[in-house]
């Protein structure tokens, strides 16, 4: 509902950023 508690929001943001960087490292095409 868009009302995500601050700490969960931060954790989620970190998770998504790390996931993005991990997938970029794995794929030779950078996606």
């Amino acid at each position: 509902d868009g009302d995500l508690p601050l700490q969960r929001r931060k954790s989620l943001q970190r998770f998504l950023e790390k996931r993005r960087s991990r997938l970029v490292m794995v794929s030779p095409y950078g996606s």
Partner: protein
Amino acid sequence: PAAAAFNQETLQQRLQTLIDGAQESWTYAIFWQSSVDDFAAQAFLGWGDGYYKGEEDKAKRSKKGSSPASIAEQEHRKKVLRELNSLISGPASTDDAVDEEVTDTEWFFLVSMTQSFMTGSGLPGQAFYTSNPVWLAGPERLAGSVCERARQAQGFGLQTMVCIPSANGVVELGSTEVIFQSTDLMNKVRVLFNFNNPDLG
């Protein structure tokens, strides 16, 4: 909030230090933070912070018999991830990474963010209530646990789950490998997560 005694940023660093520096291959670490529900006048453990490290080798994992999620399940996970991404980065954001496979352990970690445990219930709640660590190593130990969270973890390919109590909460670690009890790790948790001293924050 109860978190005021310590800094959330250092909490993330502590979780990373704990598993990045470990000899064993841990997939994730979560700090379940103790709080009091004023309305119910009951103590509970809620999401403090978490660090997802990931699995060593996806190919190795699939050989262990962890069945991949169905296409429908994958679509559901991607949809949820897309919505969460919009929530964090705004509705106009695009991120190709959300369309990549969401692994079982990633999903388990994400779902964990929505959970909380009354003191004494669930694996983290039990560890906190008894002040004793719980160490479940091996899929049969997880599958045979009375705690739903442990059984759920096994279903998502985790083979070891550990809950170590500290002053303000519980440190939970999970791995897709079988990892036997380590005194060294428990000592590290005691050093890194002893928040009795407010100066640590």
